[in-house]
């Protein structure tokens, strides 16, 4: 089974002190460390696990500049067979829609049985990409998938719903599946594993090769326009409890009792 995995490079904001960019439409990304979107790691692992069972080929692809190459190389170290970097200066400023457009153009040029991706990206949390990509390709889609079973020409997937519910779908191939974290345990990628795939060439594919109009990509092709990015204003009723841990705990218990949080 040939599987193409779409991945995204995102800034690690977990331990960073975030500040708003001068333009007011983005955060300052200068000092941030970047890594693969965590959800996409699970997508690559799932693709490699399926390949190990059924044979075939795994391709990793992203829309991004040369800085994204390291992430793709890590995808190769995880067991993917080839990787592509889709980049053109005109791609700058793509939103989920424009990105889906670029990747749809890439996918239409290739044969595949399954497209995997993470359900969300850790940076903007749009969650639109998988669905839009499937619509553009005209293939079925399933999101938040936490289990995939491969049948002959189709797959059975389980989707994670709220309140612990699970939904089972039988889907014809080709299809787009966006996975949930926890679908597997992504393998550890050692420095040596990355070094071992150092000689594999990662081709860059530009807009011309994808046959895309400048108007369909980048900020020109984006459907979402960000007006303003700002830190949430301090809300009413928020209280920071000061004092020793013992005092703070006592105060917290008091509040919880007061507000009816505990009986």
């Amino acid at each position, binding site marked *: 089974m040939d599987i193409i995995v779409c991945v995204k490079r995102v800034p690690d904001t977990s331990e960073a002190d975030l500040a708003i960019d001068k333009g007011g439409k983005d955060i300052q990304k200068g*000092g941030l460390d970047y*890594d693969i979107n965590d959800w996409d790691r699970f997508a690559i692992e799932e693709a490699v696990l399926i390949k190990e069972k059924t044979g075939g080929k795994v391709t990793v692809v992203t829309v991004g500049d040369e800085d994204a190459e390291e992430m793709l190389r890590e995808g190769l170290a*995880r067991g993917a067979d080839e990787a592509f970097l889709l980049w053109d200066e005109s791609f700058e400023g793509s939103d989920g829609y424009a990105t889906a457009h670029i990747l749809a153009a890439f996918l239409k040029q290739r044969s595949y049985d399954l497209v995997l991706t993470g359900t969300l990206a850790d940076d903007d949390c749009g969650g639109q990409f998988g669905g839009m990509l499937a619509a553009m390709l005209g293939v079925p889609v399933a999101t938040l998938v936490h289990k995939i079973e491969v049948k002959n020409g189709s797959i059975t997937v389980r989707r994670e719903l709220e309140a612990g519910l699970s939904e089972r779908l039988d889907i014809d191939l080709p299809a787009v599946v966006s996975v949930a974290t926890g679908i597997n345990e992504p393998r550890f990628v*050692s420095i*040596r*594993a990355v070094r071992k795939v150092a000689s594999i060439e990662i081709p860059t594919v530009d807009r011309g090769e994808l046959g895309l109009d400048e108007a369909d990509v980048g900020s020109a092709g984006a459907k979402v326009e960000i007006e303003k990015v700002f830190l949430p204003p301090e809300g009413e009723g928020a209280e920071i409890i000061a004092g020793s841990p013992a005092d703070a705990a006592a105060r917290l218990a008091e509040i919880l009792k007061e507000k009816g949080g505990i009986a």
Partner: protein
Amino acid sequence: MTLLEPADVPLAGISAPIVAAAVLLAAIAIFSYVMLRRIQLLRAVLPDPRFSEIGRRIWLAIVYGFGQARQPRYLGAGIMHILLFAGFVILSLRSLTLIGRGFSSGFHLPLMTGSVGFAYEVLKDYVVLMVLVVCIVAMVRRAVFKPARYQHTGTSKGHGAEAYVILGMVSALMITDMIYDGSALAVGGHTSGAALFPAASLGAAFMGAASQSTLSVLHVAGYWAHILVFFTLLNYLPISKHFHVITAIPNVFFAKLNKGGIKPVRWGVDDWMELEECGVGRFEQFTWKHVLDFYSCADCGRCSDNCPAATVGRALSPRMISIKARDYVYEHYPVFSANKDPDDKPFTGNIVTEQEIWACTTCGACEQECPIFIEYIDKIVDMRRYLVEQGEMPVSLQKPLQQIKKKGNAYGATKTKRAEWTKALEGIQVKELQPGDATDTLFFVDSCGSFDPRIQEISKSFARILHRSGVEFGILGKDETDSGNEIRRLGEEGLFEQVSSKNIEAFQAREFREIVAFDPHAFNVIRNDYPVKFPVTHASQMLARFLEQGRITLKGNYLAGRLVTYHDPCYLGRHNGVYNEPRAVLGRIPGMHLREMHRSFTRSFCCSGGGPLLWYENEEEKERMGERRVKMAAEIGAQVIVTACPFCLINLEDAVKTTGNEGKIEVIDLVELVDRYLA
């Protein structure tokens, strides 16, 4: 009256010397062949340079091999073993003599005549009786008292019966000797009496009522039985767990000399990154010394008895690694049939499971305890290297390692903030050394001291002490990277090379007299693993020196009469032999009441490990190691646990809370304690 000697009595019409020659030749031939097969495997596996520093090795062999110096760590069993070993050495002359007596009735070894020969005869007779008594006690001990450390864990076939076989055979050797000599005594050959020949006399007493013809049969039969048992025993050794009788002393001679360090991925290879495979996945990827270790394990269980992982219920039992590996050898490299193809399944992950491999904290208690210096840490690290290459790594450890890869620390913090902790110091400006700067002392803070809020307190205390001492010092700040001690021990060699080379580069770009670290893990890795050597000191050693030189003086009453105990960190004590300096510092603290825990010094009990191991979650353990340790402190009534390692501090502080000892026991780092007493 004398009896006919065995050499003079034909057996089934064949002259005795011919029988003796046939038995000797057959036995030697079989033994040589078996040994050859065993040595063939040693030659087939990977190289390991163990011929350096011959003088030191001979000394080890004398002290720990012939001298059995580690045996008394288990007093009862140790004394029994020393007696058996002494008997073995003394009676080896007797055995050679007896073999010779098959050829000639008057045979004796050179110089063994006259009064020397007589004295030896007397000595030998006492030793025979002693060995017999020890064997009986050993069998009773095993059968009746069943010491827990002899029990096997896991799925091994068990080798308990082998102990009885060997003890039985040794007893049989003694008894046949007593029959051989006793029958002669009973006939009246000797008149010197029971005081000189107690074993023979005892034998004679049992045979006292026998007729002379029975005695002559017993004399010859006792002799041949002795010879047959002797050669059977000799040939049983290399096919059983008693191979150590032959291999133990060589194993001590070839012991690892660079304690604290980890072996390279492969000896004799310049660029391990170019290797097809890395680490030990297949059995044949162990080094010959590691296979010799497997041959040599006597299954005494002392390693596992002291293993903290085994103690708290993790899947690891170090000796089972040796036992299972030797079972694997005996099965796949049999003596009398062709080598078996290795199974489809690799050794690592199947024979030794992943749970066993990740359960180890590399504390070194097992290696410290082994009477014959069997190594475990290097093997476990080699197996981890293989697993890491396969992408296997406990989930809880992946994140911290990824963070180190991206940011140079497991805390996920930005490296530009590495010196941030110094801002909270009042009145002290800690110098962040830039490339080209020079100072006296380079304080290596490491990630934990830079980013962990609790450990930052130790960093601050140490900066205050350094400041007070008047020593010029500085830190690397943003140019510092995680020291990498655990990274290497978790098998991620590539990442270790990455972080160590960054630190080495930072060291080389600055001038200093020495590096100091309060984290023993950092101290250890810089001292024993970094490919470029720098003078490095642990904070406890520096504090001892400062006090000695009068650079700092201590005053105050922080402890207020509380009972103190000292917890030896594994990477300070066992791996680097620093036991006395921390205690010397404690001795200088006014009003110190120190009491040692039952497990201290070389027998200290690991608190569950440092570096990224702080994040490691183990599903099998029933209790945290730190909790076990805090209970040991509570047992002796300690109210303060002083340690000299930030990770011990964190683990023990947590354990004080979870064992309900909060408010009763305080955990404090030696550096912090000294800071409290700065005059």
